[in-house]
């Protein structure tokens, strides 16, 4: 570990000590991390995304990564434990920085103020694991007033079987800046018995706007434990869009956003396809900690086969004049499929307006018959309703990106049914 500052090495040893306590996660099944080898950097570099092996190339395209880098301000590609490609487009605004976090930390002393602040390292064994074993990660930094037009794409690809990928990402938007990030997580078909344990910290400054769209396609034997925390300052806006497209062994996440400044807002859109024997525990939490803060959480899950999907949502009003709405809906498509919704609202102040709606159901026979009366077969009718169920508008996205995501979701649903 050459070239790392002392503060960083100290934090790593703290993380190691925390890891020994083996603090289990609050939700979802536990995971024995000792069963995996940490995927380490091996020094490989690409000069172009098209140099990816054909199989990887088509896989990452399915999660929204554009190998031609068109309509993208920057590209970050992590292959197992290493950043193998990093580039900014010639059109990218000068205030935009995209680096490997483990490089950034060696030259930017100030990053220590952001280290495990939005996402506490003490949260559970997975945050401690990232703190102790992180090998790379995306550092995306938008300087004050920089409004980045085209999205930055970050891709995390896993190719080596039996390993755990351990990225730590930090996204910082300084006051008045704006950015879209699209992250695609994908895995090689041959990458059996692997895991992905990640930590992402997001800092949205005064009046800044970030939309972060994450599209995931794992293997049926992959275990995934991402940890995400965000802090939004006065008037800042954060939009988190999460899309899960493929079967997975187990996944559990519960991103928590603290709205720290007046009028700060956060929106969550979780679109989940529960397939095969997936165990999915998907949460979203907003802490409304300043006057005028706003939050909207929306989760939709299409649950098929023997999948088990739990949707959690939490809105916590700590200051007056805040407003939040929480919606969890699941559509069951199989006899063995299971879905649960756990909405939670808490208000510590009188002038908070918090609402929620949760619904779990199956496709109504009458609706199916109605669509069939218009000439659709039963399968076509189910597919149309399923696509419609997941077709929630994702606000704040540039139209081209919105169309790309819509296309990915629609093609996957059609394929999955």
């Amino acid at each position: 570990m050459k070239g790392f500052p002392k503060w960083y090495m100290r934090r790593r040893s703290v993380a190691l000590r925390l890891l020994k306590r083996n603090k289990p996660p609050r939700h979802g099944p536990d995971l024995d991390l000792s069963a995996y080898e940490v995927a380490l950097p091996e020094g490989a570099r690409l000069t172009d995304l098209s140099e990816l092996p054909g199989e990887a190339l088509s896989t990452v395209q399915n999660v929204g990564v554009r190998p031609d880098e068109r309509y993208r301000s920057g590209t970050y590609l992590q292959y197992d434990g290493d950043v193998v490609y990093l580039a900014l487009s010639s059109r990218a605004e000068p205030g935009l920085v995209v680096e490997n976090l483990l490089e950034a930390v060696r030259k930017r002393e100030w990053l220590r103020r952001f280290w495990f602040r939005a996402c506490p390292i003490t949260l559970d064994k997975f945050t401690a694991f990232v703190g102790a074993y992180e090998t790379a990660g995306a550092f995306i930094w938008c300087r004050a007033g920089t409004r980045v037009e085209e999205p930055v794409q970050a891709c995390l690809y896993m190719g080596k079987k039996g390993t755990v990928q351990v990225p730590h990402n930090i996204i910082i938007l300084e006051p008045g800046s704006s950015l879209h990030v699209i992250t695609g997580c994908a895995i090689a078909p041959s990458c059996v018995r692997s895991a992905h344990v990640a930590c992402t910290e997001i800092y949205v400054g005064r009046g800044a706007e970030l939309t972060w769209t994450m599209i995931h396609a794992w293997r049926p034997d992959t275990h995934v434990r991402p940890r995400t925390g965000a802090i939004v300052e006065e008037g800042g806006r954060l939009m988190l869009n999460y899309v899960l497209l493929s079967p997975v062994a187990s996944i559990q996440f519960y991103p928590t956003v603290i709205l720290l400044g007046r009028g700060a807002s956060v929106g969550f859109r979780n679109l989940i396809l529960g397939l095969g024997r997936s165990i999915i525990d998907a949460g979203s939490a907003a802490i409304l900690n300043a006057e005028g803060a706003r939050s909207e959480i929306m989760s939709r899950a299409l649950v098929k086969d023997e999948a088990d999907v739990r949707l959690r949502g939490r809105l916590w009003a700590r200051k007056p004049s805040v407003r939040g709405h929480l919606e969890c809906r699941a559509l069951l498509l199989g006899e063995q499929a299971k879905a649960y919704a756990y909405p939670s609202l808490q208000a510590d102040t009188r002038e908070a307006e918090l609402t929620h709606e949760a619904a779990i159901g199956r496709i109504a026979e009458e609706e199916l018959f109605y669509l069939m009366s218009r000439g659709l077969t039963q399968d076509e009718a189910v597919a149309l309703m399923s696509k419609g169920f997941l077709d929630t508008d994702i606000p704040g996205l540039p139209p081209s990106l919105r169309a790309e995501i819509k296309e990915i979701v629609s093609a996957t649903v059609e394929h999955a049914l």
Partner: protein
Amino acid sequence: MRGALLRIEDLHVEVFGHQVLNGIWLNLGPGETHIIMGPNASGKTTLAMAILGHPAYKVVKGRLLFNGMDITHLSTTERVKLGIGVAFQNPPAIRGVKLGDLLAACVRLRRSDGDLGPACDLLREVGLDPRRFLNRDINVGFSGGEKRRAEIAQVLAMRPKLMILDEPDSGVDIDSLKLIGSAIRKATRELGCATLVITHYRHIVPYIRPTLVHVLYGGRIVASGRPSELLDKLEELGYSRFAELAMKEGWQA
């Protein structure tokens, strides 16, 4: 009878264990428009659903012939492909499914290119602005009149051989009634299709100008005839008295 597009022979239908239709006989030829009138719970919607092949509406006796072919045991999808289009009385509201998606499905039944242009013209014809309605979730937040109009536009887009309209006039104002009535008449003329209109009231009759009116009561057709022969009597007597006399005196046309 030769030349009938739809022939219903002694149809008995059960819904959730209750017998609702008790022997319906009907012949409907291409280009003809028939009206089925009857009070609530007389079996009007059951007749429409049985013709379309709804699985909950079980034919326990009798048969349905379409163009001479026995369709009693065909699936709904097959019947729709043969050219049966039904406008529902209470169409469900489905989130995420757009009116445009359904119109596209309707259009694809007859045109492989799926061109929505003509379907948009149909929407305009029934008074729905395609720019506003194509992208709306089907029937979600639609008013009664908008639902009826959207139903009719879909059925017209299917270019059916047999068009069944289940209470296209319920809950609509007089302007909508005129618009809907004349759209039905025009389509029947242009498509040359057979049309069956189900209704409670006579108000829509002048706009449609039907060939025949049938009065359905207690799961049977108790009288059939030209509108001029039946409607005034029906209005005067009311359904139950009318049915009583019709059965006693045998008013079958």
